[in-house]
């Protein structure tokens, strides 16, 4: 049992659990959409005073902020109690492709070249993190949702706008992966 828990979990179990989380949120009268939290935090920080996009009743979104705190806690608990710290089991082709970009094969969950302390405090490393965040934050609000809101909730409801958004996610992801990343790494 302990061995099963500390091993990486299979995709089908993860997919099952994620749809379960979406259904429980619906049952609790809410919906699954994580990036709304970004707008809520801006509103809670008082930015509604200068911009009307952030002037709304953000207190009605506290449940989602609590979900966010739970997600942080979930990451922490996994690291402390459920993890072997084993390298991520990605395919050999991906390891080879990434080595051409100067990213060494996985030793843990994340590449040290991007998320290690040295990278974080270098100018280039910091800019990579900052620009990635800017684009995710800007793009998710422009598109009206992120992976949870569009790819999971929206597609489950067969919403055409969500399909367009998910196509956009992939257009952007492929441009970054194949055209831009070879230039910056």
């Amino acid at each position, binding site marked *: 049992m302990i061995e099963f828990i500390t091993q990486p*979990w*299979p995709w089908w179990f*993860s*997919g*099952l659990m*994620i*749809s379960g989380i*979406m*259904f429980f*949120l*619906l*049952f*609790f009268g809410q919906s699954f959409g994580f990036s709304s939290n970004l707008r809520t935090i801006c509103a809670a920080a008082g*930015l509604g005073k200068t*911009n009307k996009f*952030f002037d709304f009743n953000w207190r009605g979104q506290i*449940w989602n902020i609590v*979900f966010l705190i*739970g997600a*942080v806690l*979930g990451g*922490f608990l996994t*690291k402390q109690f*459920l993890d072997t710290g084993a390298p*991520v089991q990605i395919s050999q082709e991906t390891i080879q*492709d*990434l080595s051409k970009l100067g990213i060494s094969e996985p030793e843990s*969950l*994340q*590449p040290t070249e*991007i*998320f290690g302390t040295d990278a*974080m405090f270098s100018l280039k490393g910091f800019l*990579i*993190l900052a620009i*990635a*965040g*800017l*684009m*995710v*934050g*800007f*793009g998710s*609000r*422009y*598109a*009206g949702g992120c*992976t*949870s809101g569009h790819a*999971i909730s929206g597609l*489950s409801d067969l919403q055409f706008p969500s399909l*367009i958004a998910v196509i*956009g*996610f992939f*257009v*952007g*992801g*492929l441009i970054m*992966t194949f055209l831009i*990343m070879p230039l910056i790494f």
Partner: protein
Amino acid sequence: MKFIKFLVLGVIFGIVMTKSEAVSWFRIQEMFRFQAFHMYGIIGTAVTLGVAGVALIKKFKIRDFSGNQILFSPKDNSVYRYLVGGTIFGLGWALGGACPGPMVVNVGYGYWAMAIVFFFALIGTYLYGVLKSKLPH
């Protein structure tokens, strides 16, 4: 007390996303390079079960725990904002290897660099709010 259930769901989300490696930058790269089924399996399973479940909720007019019928509001009809916004999101998703949920899960796991990504995601959202009226939707 009424928020405890959302905390529990958030904890489960964080654990599942970490244990299935969906919060890993490596897995997102592998997905965009079409070199493994893993991420497609996760999203595909969730969406397949989701489509079936949402259809059942609508067909049987299932109610939530406080007795209100569960309703789904259609999103505004447009192509431009979803395609352009989605593409900008995708650029960031591939570069940082995380969408907003996995960012905070990573912070909990101990990757402080993800806190920088998340902080700038807040700034990005604020920028959208500032530019909203000037952007085509």
